[in-house]
């Protein structure tokens, strides 16, 4: 049986889009169910890649390769390894949850919303599967559009347009420079080997002079750093997160941000290993600044979603720190932390979305004492908040621990500074939790808020399941990434940063 399973995964949601396009706009119920069925089917279709995945090899699996544009060296080349496997599954896992989450939230322009959502899924899976730089770039850019629409059309009234446009332009800013870098790489590959190709696996083998690596790394890194987002390129995130509809925030936080970190590990580091080593201090410091800065800024936020957005800056700082350790623990921690962040922050946004749906405000001050009317909600919120602050036994801890463990080996100062973020995380999260959930109900509007409905429990439960699962038995997931990570680490170990002064690199006279 040789089904092109990844292609199915990528394009099945598009089929759903076509299907929904043909449905009548009046019949919201049918549209929602259709989307849900498509999303669930997509998830089911994605299960074989988990079960049939061979954890012993770092090679790409489920590879498909078609000549798309041969004279330009562009092929439809897709495949996954342990790193992308988890991210693909995260995407297919979260989409049905998102569909359920927006069941009541979205009443207006449902059809378009669902189309955007499925379109987004295609883009995201495509990004994680693409092994051709051109193809990757296409998916990378394509998914901006549905996300942009999600924020701009269904976002919170006040500043959604500003947020959407900022999101689009900011992300595009980085990726355009990456496009130039991709082209430079492409022509350099031709110059060296005489072959025109965008095939990532072929370009991996290229020996690039350090001077060039330096600039190329920066160009790629900018694109990814914006997406991650690393300090100081993060300011689009709070706006986008805050203004987006719940589901948009979830997708944004859970999957889109991972494209940045994924980009680092898939493209930046293996393509430009020497430069990657050279930039370890810079990026680690930026990551650490992100961790602490994000956490500190979080503390003062008045808006729930903005707070979670800044907490993402902090969490993604951990991921970046982990990836830049280039050792097993750090990198695996980084990868698992990507998933963790997807689950926890995704869940947090869903949770905030639930009260937003009931109260139409996100201001912390509007709430207080919600534990009394909404005990189940409180319990789930607590679990997720704890997962977010890295409580052992829940998923966040595993990732953060491994990252810090890895970072500690590289540089103790990094680890010490980064670990302090754990303290701040507790501060802002618990303070927020206290202000929202504890105390007596002072705002009359909150007095009779209904607790979670079955639907809400139904979509939160799977998230909680995985939050606990990864916390208690992370090896299920770590094992899948082991071979790929080991390969990555070995790859990185073969390279070392040349000892040259920054000034000389920039001036260009290092030879």
């Amino acid at each position, binding site marked *: 049986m040789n089904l092109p399973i990844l292609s199915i995964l990528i394009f099945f949601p598009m089929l759903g889009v076509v299907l929904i396009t043909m449905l009548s706009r009046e019949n919201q119920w049918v549209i929602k169910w259709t989307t849900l069925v498509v999303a669930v089917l997509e998830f089911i279709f994605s299960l074989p890649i988990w079960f049939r995945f061979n954890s012993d090899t770092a090679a790409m699996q489920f590879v498909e390769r078609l000549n798309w544009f041969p004279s330009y060296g562009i092929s439809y080349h897709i495949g996954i390894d342990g790193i992308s496997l988890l991210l693909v599954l995260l995407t297919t896992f979260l989409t049905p949850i998102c569909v359920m989450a927006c069941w009541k939230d979205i009443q207006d322009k449902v059809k378009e919303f669902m189309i955007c959502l499925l379109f987004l899924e295609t883009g995201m899976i495509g990004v994680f599967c693409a092994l051709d730089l051109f193809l990757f770039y296409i998916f990378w850019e394509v998914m901006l559009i549905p996300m942009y629409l999600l924020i701009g059309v269904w976002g919170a009234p006040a500043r959604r347009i500003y947020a959407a446009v*900022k999101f689009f*332009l*900011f992300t595009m800013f980085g990726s355009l420079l990456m496009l130039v870098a991709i082209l430079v790489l492409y022509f350099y590959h031709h110059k060296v080997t005489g072959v025109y190709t965008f095939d990532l696996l072929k370009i991996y083998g290229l020996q690039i002079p350090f001077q060039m690596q330096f600039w190329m790394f920066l160009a790629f890194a900018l694109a990814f750093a914006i997406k991650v987002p690393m*300090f*100081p390129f*993060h*300011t*689009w995130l709070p706006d986008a997160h805050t203004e987006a509809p719940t589901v948009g925030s979830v997708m944004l936080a859970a999957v889109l941000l991972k494209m940045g970190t994924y980009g680092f590990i898939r493209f930046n580091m293996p393509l430009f290993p020497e430069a990657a080593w050279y930039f370890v201090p810079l990026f680690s410091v930026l990551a650490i600044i992100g961790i602490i*800065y994000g956490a*500190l*800024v*979080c*503390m*003062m*936020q008045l808006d729930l979603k903005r707070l979670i957005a800044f907490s993402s800056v902090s969490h993604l700082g951990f991921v970046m720190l982990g990836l830049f350790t280039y*050792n*097993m*623990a750090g990198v*695996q*921690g980084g990868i698992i932390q990507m998933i963790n962040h997807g689950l926890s922050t995704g869940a947090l946004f869903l949770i905030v979305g639930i009260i937003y749906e009931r109260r139409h405000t996100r201001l912390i001050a509007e709430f207080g004492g919600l*534990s009394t009317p909404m*005990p189940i909600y409180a*319990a789930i919120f*607590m679990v997720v908040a*704890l997962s977010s602050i890295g*409580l*052992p*036994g829940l998923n966040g*801890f*595993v990732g953060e*621990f*491994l990252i*810090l*463990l890895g970072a*500690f*080996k590289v540089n*103790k100062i990094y*680890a*010490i500074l980064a*670990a*302090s973020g*754990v*303290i701040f995380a*507790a*501060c802002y999260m*618990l*303070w927020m939790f*206290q202000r929202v*959930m*504890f*105390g*007596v109900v002072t705002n009359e509007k909150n007095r009779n808020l209904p607790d979670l409905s079955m639907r809400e429990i139904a979509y939160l439960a799977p998230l909680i399941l995985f939050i606990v699962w990864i916390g*208690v*038995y*992370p*090896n299920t997931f*770590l094992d899948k990434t*082991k071979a790929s990570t*080991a390969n990555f*680490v070995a790859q990185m170990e073969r390279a070392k940063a040349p000892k040259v002064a920054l000034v000389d690199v920039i001036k260009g006279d290092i030879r």
Partner: protein
Amino acid sequence: MIEYVWLVPLVPILGFLFNGLLGKRVPKWLVSLVGCSVIGIPFLIVILIFREYLQLPADAKPVEVVVYNWISSGNFNALAAFLVDPLSLIMMLVVSGVSFIIHIYSVGYMHDDEGYPRYFSYLNLFVFAMLVLVSANNFLLMFVGWEGVGLCSYLLIGFWYEKQSASDAGKKAFVVNRIGDFGFLLGIFLIFWTFNTINFREVFSIAGTNFEVGSLVITAITLLLFVGATGKSAQLPLYVWLPDAMEGPTPVSALIHAATMVTAGVYMVARCSALYVLAPVSLTVVAIVGAATAILSASIGLAQNDIKRVLAYSTVSQLGYMFLACGVGAFVAGIFHLMTHAFFKALLFLGSGSVIHAMSGEQDMRHMGDLKKHLPITYWTFIMATLAIAGIFPFAGFFSKDEILYKSLVDGHILYWLIAAAAAFMTAFYMFRLIFMTFHGESRVDHEVLHHVHESPPVMTLPLIALAVLSTIGGFVGIPIIEGANVFHDFLAPAIAHVHRPEIHYPISFEVSMMVVSVIIALLGINTAYRMYIKRPELPQIVTEKIPLLYDLIYHKYYVDELYAATVVNPIKVGSDFLWKGVDEQVVDGAVNGSAGVIEWLSYHIRKLETGYVQNYALAILIGVFIIAGYYLGR
């Protein structure tokens, strides 16, 4: 049975799940039954394991039980595995035993609370975490329990979440604990990258063979771990959360903030004794911090009026004792005091809970007095516990406290002894002050309340009695002087490392005389309290007026909370606000919006060039011609 040691922590978590998920839907008695039995069962299992362990041949000890591989990445492996050795057995026994008693007490105490199932589920979760903490075989799993108990402490302190002070206290406890955990975590990293393992026994054996005494890395590790201990065990400078933690229900204070969780730091130091003995500097730090905490918090205890706060400061002070013991290398003495303290301090808290219960929630001792006749069982058990904590022979506290005092003198320094003795004096004083203010003298109770004052139901008094028995006789497992009578010491010996120093033998008479001295000190304290609160009740007033500054300082707990607020909390808040509104919105986002703004500005100005006059356009073409011509001419 030993191979089923994983059941010990597992069973309570079933209770947690049951009560947490279904508690609201099942009758209260079932909640109580499940809540208590999931603690009782592990207690029984521990007893069985204990018996089995005693019969094991020496070479089969200690036992490690691996459940599964928890986290593995590269050469890092953290197993979910348990270590059964004397130290963990003692701890498991104490934890599950005391927990069981307190669970039963809680059935009565919390009976009318709305959050009854929630309470039991949290409490069960706590026991789970605590048992994991004490039975883990590696640092990381211990850390799981370590943070887990912190979480439960947070949940239980903030149990009455509608009270602002309660949720504040919970948060404070968690955050302060996190600061300690931060140190612990770094310690684990350093351990792993030093030893390439985080398994206790492997670490200790490598440390013993490959590292010199005074090795820098070991010193660093032990200091980092000790940071964790100061957080969890409320030592200077991180003790501030514990007094506030009294916002929680009283059984919680008894269980978590007296008997078990707060002693985790002592347990950890004792567990890592093999490392600490290699780091004399760290030991000194431990001893100094312990001694300082003991005296400082004892002094604060002198002036508190809230019955639970007195006990809280007393706990901090007693924990200081334990660390002092560890610091001078008397780890066993520390653990011994840990155990006896668990008994009598739990009893004290439960007793105070009984008082508070009777007083309809009143905690201020100034509104009590002469409760002896109303609460006889509570009173008498309370007396026993107080005698124990004061260190009066033959109560449990006597043995353990005396050992610490003695060791601090012979293995430590005369200063330690002086401090410890002074603290002992104060302890005796304020504990009896508490007794006198609460149970004796004139009744200052509101009439309204007085009507309802009654002895607690048996479900609460029976645990008191059980603990009173333990507080009374518990010390006899560690009888000093007589060879072979110190069962406790002998049992623990294999799990504890010894400080490498020349053995000095002191004459028995010296030891005995020191005992006498310590009892005398305690009696002096009791006497002073008696004189001030029974014989001349006006005396305290006079004393406070004579030394207003000092009194004020003590009364306000040396203004430590205020100090922290001013130096740490507020700067962080102000700084964060600045980071957000100043840096993030103005600078970072300002740059983003600014560059967009610049382009927009340009757009609105460049468009003005387009004047609409055709001749201007022609001129532009001509200028273009000139530019091209200029380009060719100018090269």
